[in-house]
């Protein structure tokens, strides 16, 4: 456990020693804030207009759910934006160590490969949490001026965390396959996009393939969370995805010894 922490802590700190952490977190928050402001304004405008119309025509004033509009939209955007930024975080994990030769230090130290993989995974995962955490301010803002349900906000965060873990485990795996960070980054990006787009495909077809596509789509499992539903199938999907990713990483690092 101590070894896992040592690996994790060194890696986590090194994100902040280089500009990576600041750039990725900065870009993420800028984009999410931009979406938030846009959607929030839209919501305010919409409710104003609708309320005004209702008053004019002397109808009952309709109720608007900020949960279903702004908050859910915000989480979807966070999900999609992080899909583009997470490869930047995960691509270096093992590729850089392989390139600079420091992997030789780690693999000749009395560490197990499991400890190594877990430490590496955790560092990217915790950086992801660091990146997502400030978005709670947006929620706070909504709670300050609105009256949303807390439940869906919490389940959405749970979903984002699980989703992040699954995505990062794939990134970790791909990073362990190559010495070249650019290749790792490009492949990771491609894999993420595939897992995202495959969900879109499922909307367009009704055949059995559509069901399969929907099942393997890493984004479609997020939908329930964003609606305030925690379905054990989704939780199991993300956790097993994460487990398989890390298991394969373990195998990939082990196989380095045989080259």
């Amino acid at each position: 456990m101590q070894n896992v922490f040592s690996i994790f802590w060194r890696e986590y700190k090194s994100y902040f020693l280089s500009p990576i952490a600041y750039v990725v977190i900065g870009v993420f928050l800028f984009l999410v804030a931009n979406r938030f402001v846009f959607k929030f304004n839209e919501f305010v405008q919409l409710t104003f207009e609708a309320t005004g119309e209702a008053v004019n025509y002397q109808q009952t004033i309709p109720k608007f759910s900020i949960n279903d509009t702004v908050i859910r939209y915000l989480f979807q955007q966070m999900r999609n934006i992080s899909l583009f930024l997470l490869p930047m975080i995960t691509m270096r994990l093992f590729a850089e160590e392989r390139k600079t030769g420091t992997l030789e230090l780690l693999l000749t130290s009395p560490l197990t490969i499991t400890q190594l993989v877990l430490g590496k995974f955790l560092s990217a995962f915790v950086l992801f949490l660091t990146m997502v955490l400030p978005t709670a301010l947006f929620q706070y803002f909504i709670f300050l001026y609105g009256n949303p349900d807390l439940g869906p906000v919490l389940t959405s965060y749970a979903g984002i965390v699980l989703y992040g873990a699954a995505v990062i485990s794939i990134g970790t795996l791909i990073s362990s396959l190559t010495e070249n960070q650019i290749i790792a980054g490009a492949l990771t990006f491609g894999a993420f996009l595939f897992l995202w787009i495959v969900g879109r495909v499922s909307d367009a077809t009704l055949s059995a393939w559509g069901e399969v596509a929907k099942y393997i789509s890493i984004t479609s499992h997020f939908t329930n969370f964003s609606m305030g539903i925690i379905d054990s199938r989704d939780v199991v999907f993300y956790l097993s995805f994460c487990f398989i990713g890390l298991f394969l990483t373990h195998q990939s690092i082990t196989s380095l010894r045989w080259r």
Partner: protein
Amino acid sequence: MIHVNNLTKRYGNFRAVDNISFNLRKGEILGFLGPNGAGKTTTMRIITGYLSATLGNVTVAGNDIFQRPLAVKRNIGYLPETPPLYRDMRVSDYLNFCGKIKGLSGYRDRKRRLGYVVERCGLEEVRNVHIHKLSKGYRQRVGLAQALIHNPPVLVLDEPTAGLDPHQIIGVRELIRQLAGDHSILLSTHILPEASLTCDRVLIIDRGRILAEDTTERLTGELTGHDMIRLTVSGAPDDIRKRIGVLEGVAKVDEHKAPGMGKDGIRQFDISYELGKDRRGELSRAVVGSGAELLELRAQSLSLEEIFIKITTRAPEEADSRIDQEGR
């Protein structure tokens, strides 16, 4: 401390390491001498557990590397060819991290060892400097400090002096000599003088096989079977070669021909003497007596290249039988 038994590493059909066996005794420095691509690094990587072997076994301090890898890794300090440094860290942070992952779990323990290796490797001045700002010599020393941090009984150093300037090379060599005794050291090099200066014993390895194992002095003597002297003269009479040849103890005289040689009447000879019969005085008198001017007269030792050519051109069976004898 290290027992290597019939170790083989194959990459497809290529044998990077071909059935080698040797021992590293307690407190000694064993040199691994060979040209680039001879299999030195591969062997070291197997011993340290970075690579697996195709056949054979390795024990370090009584632990089998394939059965108890963690115990072995705790007992080895390893400096790879390029020091494995995190460029964005400070020296002390880096060494602290190395201490942590190498099993120095107590903070006090780690601090004590850190102070020790920093002093030992002469890193006081750069303690708080970022590694990417360090010179090559300092980086090498940080690498060495990293290998030492957990006080391992065995040190495996892969070309510890490669790429350093002469002054730094001397420093690193001295450091390694000081470390012997407390630690058993296996180091690789492709520079012969280095092996003879630092190592107690030398293994010569080429194309994955051990060709010879002995002290450097005995290797040179045994291989040549005679002493070599290089002689440069000018204005020598035509029969100088014959005059030298008849001197007592001279086995062979070769005229050394190189481009540009022979101008101004300068000629060079390589003279082989029977082993242990140095007659340079007699030789110089003979040269001067013949009316020639003596420009240079020096004893030659074989360079690594020559030793290699000598050893590799010998019959392979002979090399094998040598190893068998020494293995006993």
